[in-house]
């Protein structure tokens, strides 16, 4: 168990491609950190740099009090769980779990105790003498976790560990992982491209885009106050509505496709004539015309989900698509015009060119 400090970490490959640049993060002892982002954003590279499988080009990496930039993976006191499990196919489950401990030179009785304990935690007791090929995907992933647990490392690293499993198992193992984290109280760093996984597991999320950190914060920080348009887009399902337009002269409206339908209750923090993107989550729109932003929606079609109703349509007088999530069963016909509004906290304004948050 230990803190992890990442200082202006960067990775440039010999060919000149920069995979990661200037990443800073201070991770507290026992925190569950999820690195999330689209494929190719550098999240796995960061994880592999922490593991020591990838060299660090610039910056510093500290685990506990120790600078580990130049240490071998085996010397960093970390354990890693891979997406494709990476179990040794010729060894039994027990063999897989004890291999690292044997290499450390731990006494036999201690190895046995640790394996028994991990097997009990992960419900693998009856499989200890089987080979990985005789196990199901979920069991294999649990063995991979067991291999990490027995080493009792300072930091656990997970590289998309649930991606190869089917949806049901994924949900189940996600819950097990969360429970495991609470039981062990160790520092977890977890890479995924799935925002639901990130939201449900993380204490804090590091969201990455094109090799840079977009935002670091708790899941609710990211959901309620996304720092950039990218974060706003990435977190939340269905995705956030984003309407691009020009701020009107009085700074109380948004000119979209020549329509002045969108009105704000107060002046918005952008200069007149500025190009901005307005974001509102579908679940934050309501059918009352008071609120920070008010406008009309022409209904195209309605999705009934039982608990919710998602109404799809266009901002009145424009061709900009928009979705509204209303609770319960609601009937709306195509062509109907709805008056919509949202709260001041739920209105996000982003600069159109930089994508940075304005309000």
């Amino acid at each position, binding site marked *: 168990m230990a803190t992890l400090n990442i200082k202006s970490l960067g990775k440039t490959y010999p060919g000149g491609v920069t995979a990661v640049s200037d990443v800073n993060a201070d991770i507290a002892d026992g925190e569950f950190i999820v690195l999330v982002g689209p494929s190719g954003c550098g999240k796995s590279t960061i994880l592999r740099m922490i593991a020591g499988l990838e060299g660090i080009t610039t910056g510093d990496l500290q685990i506990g009090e120790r600078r580990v930039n130049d240490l071998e993976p*085996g010397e960093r006191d970390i354990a890693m769980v*891979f997406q*494709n499990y990476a179990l040794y196919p*010729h060894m039994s489950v027990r063999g897989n779990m004890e*291999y690292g401990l044997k*290499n*450390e030179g731990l006494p036999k009785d201690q190895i046995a105790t640790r394996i028994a304990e991990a097997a009990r935690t992960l419900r693998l007791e009856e499989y200890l003498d089987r080979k990985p090929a005789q196990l199901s995907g979920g069991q294999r992933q649990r063995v991979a976790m067991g*291999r990490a647990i027995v*080493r009792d490392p300072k930091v656990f690293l997970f590289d998309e560990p649930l991606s190869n499993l089917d949806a049901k198992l994924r949900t189940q193992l996600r819950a097990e992982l969360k429970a495991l984290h609470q039981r062990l109280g160790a520092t977890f760093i977890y890479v995924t491209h799935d925002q639901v996984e990130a939201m449900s597991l993380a204490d804090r999320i590091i969201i990455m885009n094109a090799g840079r950190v977009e935002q670091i914060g708790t899941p609710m920080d990211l959901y309620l106050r996304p720092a950039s348009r990218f974060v706003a887009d990435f977190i939340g399902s269905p995705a956030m509505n984003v309407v691009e337009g020009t701020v009107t002269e009085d700074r109380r409206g948004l000119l979209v496709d020549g329509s002045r339908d969108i009105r704000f209750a107060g002046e918005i923090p952008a200069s007149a004539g500025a190009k901005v993107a307005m974001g509102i989550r579908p679940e934050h729109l309501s059918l009352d015309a008071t609120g920070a932003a008010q406008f009309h929606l022409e209904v195209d079609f309605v999705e009934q989900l039982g608990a919710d109703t998602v109404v799809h349509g266009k901002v009145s007088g424009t061709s900009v698509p928009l979705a509204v999530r209303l609770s319960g069963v609601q009937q709306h016909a195509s062509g109907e015009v709805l008056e919509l509004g949202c709260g001041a906290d739920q209105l996000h304004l982003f600069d159109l060119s930089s994508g940075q948050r304005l309000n």
Partner: protein
Amino acid sequence: MVENRPILTFLTHAILIVGVLFLCFPVWMALVASTHGPGALSQSPIPLWFGDQAWENYSQLLAGGLPEAGGVPIGMMMFNSLIMALVITFGKIVISILSAYAIVYFRFPFRMGFFWMIFITLMLPVEVRILPTFDVVVKMGLLNTYAGLTIPLIASATATFLFRQFFLTIPDELVEAARIDRAGPIRFFKDILLPLSRTNIAALFIILFIYGWNQYLWPLLITTDESLYTVVMGIQRMVNSGEALPVWHYIMGTAVLAMIPPVLVVVLMQKLFVKGLVESEK
């Protein structure tokens, strides 16, 4: 294609049986001939069934050797062949698995250059490079030694290439997991790579053992000392035994004896061999 017509079934079986007869007839003849006395094979008709001299022929071959072939006992020659085949086999496997390990898992200058150098030697079988190799062996004073008999045949591009291809199919994550588990290069090789290569090693063992056992030209060149003769050479020397009539019953007996070790290796290791060729265990 599943067709069930009696004529076709009959035809296919007939063709197969004829093929098997063609293949087996020489072996049969060798077996039969080795059980007859000296005269029986020089006159027609050649006997097609076993004679009564089996015991005499084989005990003479194994114990005393033949005056016509320099009097070297067959047992001695078999032993030489066995040594040669085993040293070549183990040497080839050890060297090629180590060089494949180096080429696949280590980044060193001119790595690909070395790989291509090894690969190019595939185009140079023993027969092509026999004169320079002979020259080197002479200058190193290795004529008439086991070392001279085996070492020049040990380097093997084929086996190196085979192991390289197999190593490339092992997922990188396995190497990384091993690194995290504190396995250094030697541990990784011993604990992970060797056990995973088991079936490949078995398949190579069979192929290389037979290759080594059947070497003919090289031992012929490199040995003049009778105590180093191999059995394959021995057969040839018996056939060319000067003016005298070839002693076919002894020659065939030697041939039968020479066949036994490769057959044993194939039969005993067949299961692993097939496994190694068709599947790469993941």
